[in-house]
């Protein structure tokens, strides 16, 4: 009986479910954490709570019927997913796209990228405890949603691109609203920088937190702002130029150390680059038709195709196997968040639970995109 008291009191590990319903997991991601006090011994992201079977749906639906699905996989960058899917099928069926439609697609895709980054900015700082930037960034984001709503009819899940072009033409009201928005957002940068970037608390929460270097990104297949923050300038718009991106000059911002602060800075600079692209695209918007003649049901020739696009979170690829009919035989969307999320299993062990929130927020994943 006596040795029961002499037995050294060891500390038991504590299992915590940062589970599907958690304010900072941006959707229904479940982080199963094995904790030793405040430190994480092991982190196992459990996904699948947002699995809706997009790829199985593609196999029993026409190419045209899968269009709404494409923008519901990643609803923050819905137009970029739309653009990727439509461009992939056009390349397979070698459909010609008029120049004006390409320009409209680029303008709307970049606007969508900015709205996705603005939402990331708001929710990331809200995870770290600051509520005001959320209201600022959502206010700007509402402007973009108004502009895109005017031309595509919906705020989030667009089906605006069509095979061979876009659904509706831009009117000069759209162009005027976009130019006003560009100046308005440019005036906002120093607000954001004063409010957040120079804020000591934010710097302490983001500096040297969640270091992801080039080697780790290569092992886990991370792309997008995470990879660029590690110093690798890989952006599909420059690496595999598609659409009319070669005609615009814009830089790819890269970070140095690959910590959360670098990811933050890369995304803010990316928004500025997107504004530059939109400006150049608006200046050189050609006249002409917005949609080429396309058969009612697209029937691409047999074989498999891969087409990559730069989404807000990284390299989005569509791998489509066509059997010559108007139904895809197999459609796989290579989504960037899948690789970006997996890097957590290597980055989280050893960090504090509070840093997990900062790392998860700086990686910016959308769970239904991971779960497809």
């Amino acid at each position, binding site marked *: 009986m006596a040795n029961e008291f002499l037995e050294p009191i060891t500390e038991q590990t504590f299992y915590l479910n940062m589970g599907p319903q958690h304010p900072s997991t941006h959707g229904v991601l479940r982080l199963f954490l094995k904790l030793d006090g405040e430190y994480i011994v092991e982190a196992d992201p459990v*996904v699948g709570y947002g699995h809706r*079977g997009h790829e199985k749906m593609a196999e029993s639906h026409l190419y045209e019927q899968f269009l709404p699905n494409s923008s519901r996989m990643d609803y923050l960058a819905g137009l970029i997913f739309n653009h990727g899917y439509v461009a992939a099928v056009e390349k397979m069926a070698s459909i010609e796209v008029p120049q004006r439609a390409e320009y409209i697609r680029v303008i709307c895709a970049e606007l969508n990228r900015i709205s996705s980054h603005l939402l990331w900015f708001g929710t990331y700082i809200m995870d770290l405890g600051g509520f005001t930037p959320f209201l600022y960034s959502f206010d700007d984001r509402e402007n973009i949603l108004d502009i895109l709503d005017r031309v595509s009819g919906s705020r989030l899940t667009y089906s605006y691109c069509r095979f061979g072009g876009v659904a509706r033409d831009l009117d000069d009201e759209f162009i005027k609203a976009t130019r006003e928005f560009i100046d308005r957002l440019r005036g906002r940068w120093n607000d954001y920088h004063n409010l957040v970037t120079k804020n000591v608390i934010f710097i302490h929460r983001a500096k040297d937190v969640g270091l992801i270097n080039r080697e780790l990104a290569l092992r*886990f297949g991370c792309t997008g702002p995470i990879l660029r923050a590690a110093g690798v300038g890989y952006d599909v718009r420059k690496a595999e130029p598609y659409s009319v991106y070669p005609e615009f000059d814009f830089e790819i911002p890269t970070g140095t150390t690959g910590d959360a602060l670098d990811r933050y800075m890369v995304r803010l600079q990316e928004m500025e680059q997107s504004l530059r692209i939109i400006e150049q695209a608006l200046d050189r918007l050609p006249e002409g038709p917005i949609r080429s003649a396309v058969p009612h049901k697209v029937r691409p020739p047999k074989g*498999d195709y*891969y087409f*990559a696009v730069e989404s807000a979170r990284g390299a989005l690829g569509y791998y489509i196997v066509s059997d010559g009919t108007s139904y895809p035989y197999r459609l796989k969307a290579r989504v960037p968040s899948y690789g970006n999320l997996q890097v957590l299993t290597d980055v989280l062990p050893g960090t504090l639970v509070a840093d997990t929130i900062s790392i998860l927020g700086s990686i910016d994943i959308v769970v239904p995109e991971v779960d497809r």
Partner: protein
Amino acid sequence: MSLEDLKEELSKVVEPTAISPRDHDKDGCLLEIRATVDQVESVAKAARQADLFLESITATDFTNGPQVIYHYNSFVTISRVLVRVPLARGDSVPTISNVYDAALWYEREVFDLFGIRFDNHPDLRRILLPEDADFHPLLKDYGKVHAFRSREDIYG
């Protein structure tokens, strides 16, 4: 790492006849490799030497057995390599998660949706479907599908 020495690097691992160039603008990849099941690991190691990253692992179901597809790509130049591994029904594939950690989840997803087992994978369990699911949805004989073809129908 230009395309030529990438091709020559890979031809050490796979017979040169299995490597066929593809037009990037048309099919999206520069090299297509038809590998067999036991060459998978060596192709992965060669790709890792060539500083490529694993873009995705996926599979497609055919009447004469599923086919696993690996995509490798580079951060620097356009060099997407497509590795095609035809399997017989019920075959299993060696894992490449010791070469690329990304493969851990990609292989779990292919196992979850297709039922293809990856031997000596550290923890091969379902990732997307609930743990107690007993079916593999993306197989062509499950649920509603438009067509179920053989490999020869599509790739000739």
